[in-house]
């Protein structure tokens, strides 16, 4: 009988709710997990941290029955259990919120919640209404308000996350696994979420919290387990550790990446200090000619709603303009529109003063516009093609790799190898299939392809999403190098730390408009965080968490 309020009976005694012993998993010749032990105590928030590829998600997927383990045992409430499918896990009261939500976008919230559940063969309106009521109740209890009847594709990312959590609770989860839950939230929202989790824990739930943001880990969890390269390198209590130590455990080496504060920022440390870093001298002299100018841009989203509503910005040569904001405030549409992948409904886009509104990508590429797409697998790479082909596909008909009527296969391999060399891409070789690359390597390929062109303007959208520290490091360096080369760089990122670390100017988009901007000198994390929630400086307020999202879905 699904019940959101978690009966504390489950959490009696100090024995672990979940005890994973010597769990091992291999994918091909890659050891994803090696003899990993993991305990989850009743009523605790347990952070699971590590670099990308450290095995955090895999470990939890094993627990949730998505991935089968090669060896090891799992105990739930002291009893040996065999979890083969998510259904098994659900029946044991385990719920998981994946980083990439598993919601069917064309169905409504309630439909998604009853999807795949047992019960009456008919889906009666009355019954759905009951479910909806239950959802609203749970929503109220934990401050996860969402319209149960809305179609999922109408919801913002934040709302979809709530649906996922509510679904788990609705199915009676006593153990809740959250994979990178704060990745796409404003700092305010993130704090809000943590509060909500605490409320659930008070009701007796136990929560696993996967993240790589150390700040929130220290702030609000009971225990921390660090994974590195598929090994458990230790479980600690926040009180007796520090971001520095955790970072070291994660990365496996002292985190002294050139001693520049932004590297620590990557690991979630307060970055206000970054404001006074000596990057300012690279900033453009005032009034320098704008390379990109966007005027009153209006664009519709796939849902037919106004995603960009009179957005204005400009980027000058040799500066990085950061566009911060919560996912779903028009960043995706901005990225696509600026690169000719989406038609405008109004406004103009000027490149060096030339009107390039609605020009096709081919034309923009020729004009020296480069894009590092936010979805590197969907837009950036063709998995079934080789690394070399991916590196050269935008110039495949030009010498030396080809002519209009001919591909020079040897030349492609040679040139590909050359680029791999030059951009130090850790691929096995030019003939490796792009589909087999890790996230970081894939992004390096995209960067190499883009930056090896003659560029005027570089649009980088979420360039480090899901990358580990090492990869993040090299991406950032390349962006700064681009700036030094005098390129105009537009950085669209939902990762505030990234914007803070790189941007000469920072804009905040909200509801398809730029609602605030700061020069580097005035950068202030809290102010930006508020603005991301929709609170204009001195303008209309918002409680930072919800007002924003409602406003977004209200847009257009």
């Amino acid at each position, binding site marked *: 009988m699904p019940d959101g309020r978690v009966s504390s009976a489950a959490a009696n005694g100090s024995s672990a709710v979940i005890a994973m012993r010597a769990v091992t*998993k291999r*994918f091909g010749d890659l050891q*994803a997990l090696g003899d990993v032990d993991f305990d989850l105590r009743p009523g605790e928030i347990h952070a699971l941290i590590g670099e990308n590829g450290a095995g955090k*998600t*895999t470990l939890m*997927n*094993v627990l949730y029955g*998505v*991935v089968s383990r090669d060896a090891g045992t799992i105990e739930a409430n002291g009893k040996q259990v065999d979890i083969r*499918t*998510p*259904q098994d896990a*659900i029946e044991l009261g385990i719920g998981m919120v*994946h980083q990439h939500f*598993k*919601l*069917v*976008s*064309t*169905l409504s919230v309630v*439909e*998604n919640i*009853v*999807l*795949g*559940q047992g*019960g*009456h*063969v*008919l*889906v*009666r309106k009355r019954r759905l209404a009951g479910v909806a009521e239950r959802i609203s109740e749970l929503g109220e209890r934990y401050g996860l308000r969402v319209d149960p009847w809305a179609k999922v594709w109408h919801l913002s990312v934040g709302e979809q996350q709530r649906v996922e959590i509510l679904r788990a609770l609705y199915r009676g989860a006593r153990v809740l696994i959250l994979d990178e839950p704060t990745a796409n939230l404003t700092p305010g929202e993130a704090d809000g979420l943590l509060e909500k989790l605490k409320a659930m824990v008070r009701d007796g739930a136990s929560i696993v919290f996967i993240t790589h943001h150390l700040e929130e880990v220290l702030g609000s969890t009971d225990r921390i387990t660090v994974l590195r390269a598929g090994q458990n390198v230790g479980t600690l209590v926040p009180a007796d550790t520090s971001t520095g130590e955790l970072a070291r455990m994660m990365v496996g080496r002292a985190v002294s990446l050139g001693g520049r504060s932004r590297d620590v920022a990557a690991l979630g440390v307060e970055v206000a200090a970054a404001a006074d870093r000596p990057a300012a001298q690279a900033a453009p002299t005032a009034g320098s000619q704008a390379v990109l100018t966007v005027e009153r841009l209006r664009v*519709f989203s*796939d*849902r*037919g709603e106004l995603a960009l509503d009179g957005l204005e910005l400009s980027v000058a040569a040799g500066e990085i303009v950061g566009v911060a904001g919560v996912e779903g405030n028009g960043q995706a549409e901005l990225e696509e529109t600026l690169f000719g992948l989406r038609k405008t409904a109004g406004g103009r886009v000027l490149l060096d003063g030339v009107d390039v509104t609605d020009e096709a990508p081919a034309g923009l590429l020729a004009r020296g516009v480069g894009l590092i797409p936010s979805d590197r697998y969907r837009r950036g790479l063709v998995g079934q093609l080789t690394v070399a082909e991916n590196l050269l596909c935008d110039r495949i008909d030009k010498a030396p790799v080809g002519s209009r009527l001919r591909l020079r296969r040897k030349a492609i391999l040679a040139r590909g190898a050359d680029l791999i060399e030059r951009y130090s891409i850790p691929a096995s070789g030019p003939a490796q299939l792009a589909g087999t690359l890790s996230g970081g390597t894939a992004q390096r390929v995209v960067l190499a392809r883009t930056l090896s062109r003659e560029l005027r303007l570089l649009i980088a959208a979420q360039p480090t999403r899901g990358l580990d520290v090492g990869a993040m490091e090299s991406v950032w360096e390349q962006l700064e190098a681009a700036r030094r080369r005098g390129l105009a760089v537009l950085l669209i990122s939902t990762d505030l730390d990234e914007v803070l670390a790189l941007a000469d100017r920072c804009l905040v988009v909200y509801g398809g408009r730029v609602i605030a901007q700061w020069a580097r000198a005035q950068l202030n994390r809290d102010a930006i965080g508020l603005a991301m929630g929709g609170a204009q400086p001195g303008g209309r307020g918002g409680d930072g968490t919800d007002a924003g999202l409602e406003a977004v879905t209200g847009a257009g």
Partner: protein
Amino acid sequence: MNWNEVIGSSALVPLFSSGVALAVPTATAAVGECFSERAGNLNLGVEGMMLSGAFAGFIGTYYTHSVAVGVLCGIGAGVLLGILMAGLSVWLKTEQVINGIALVLFAQGLTAFVYGKLFSTSSTPTISTPANLHIPLLADIPVIGPVLFKQNSLFYIAVAAMLGVIFVLYRTRFGLSVRATGEDPAAADAAAISVDRVRWIALLVGGATAGLGGAVLVVGQLGIIQTNVTAGAGWIAVALVIFGRWNPVYVILGAFLFGTTDALQLRIQAASGGVTSGFPYEFFQALPYLVTLAVMVAVAIGARRTAQPAALGAPFRKEVAG
């Protein structure tokens, strides 16, 4: 020409009855195809399934003199081919487009063979089509009454089947799973739905309705059989699913539009003096296709986002990497 003969008040009832008659077999198959496509199966074998259903239905009725048995045979034949299709598309995951076309080849040959084998030249087989039932009261509604409520039992069976499929698709858990599976198999899988199982069943449903459609045509309307008796209705059914943007209700409307245009062109032609009018009758014959295409384009111009199930035609494989 005398338009009154074509769309005059007195001509409307026969016109629409004719339109409905032409539409029902196709619509039945199309609704089933819509169902299986919503689950992510692209089944181009509908023509073959209808043809087999038509033959099985006829044979069943011919030897047992029971329409009911005939209909069951028709459905059964469709289901058998559905199993074959599912075996290829879902289990072996072979290219769905080619599965369908191979299935049509196979069914055409098989039915032609059976026809030649079973019926000697001495006696040409015919079956008597069931008489029209007049639904009291409803049948007396002007125009609609005679068109919809003075049809024979198979018409009502077909309608019931269509409504049933629509009901299952939108009002049952399984229907929910079907819609989820066609749209986002990974999410469905995560929700503990067996994607392949759903697709299997959906293909069987599609086969059953296609078979029923064939049976309705031959047992309910013609009472006589012939090689390739469906004459391409199955292909139209596939087209109608896309035309109806995967919404079974629109699919049915599309079928009716197509059928009525066809009925209309036959009348215009006769009323306009046929070939003696010098106007190429091929134009009239092409009319249903032209109209369908025109409406399609119009809809496409209006539409912002595609209605096609995202995973249509793509076999589902559980991804190994966590």
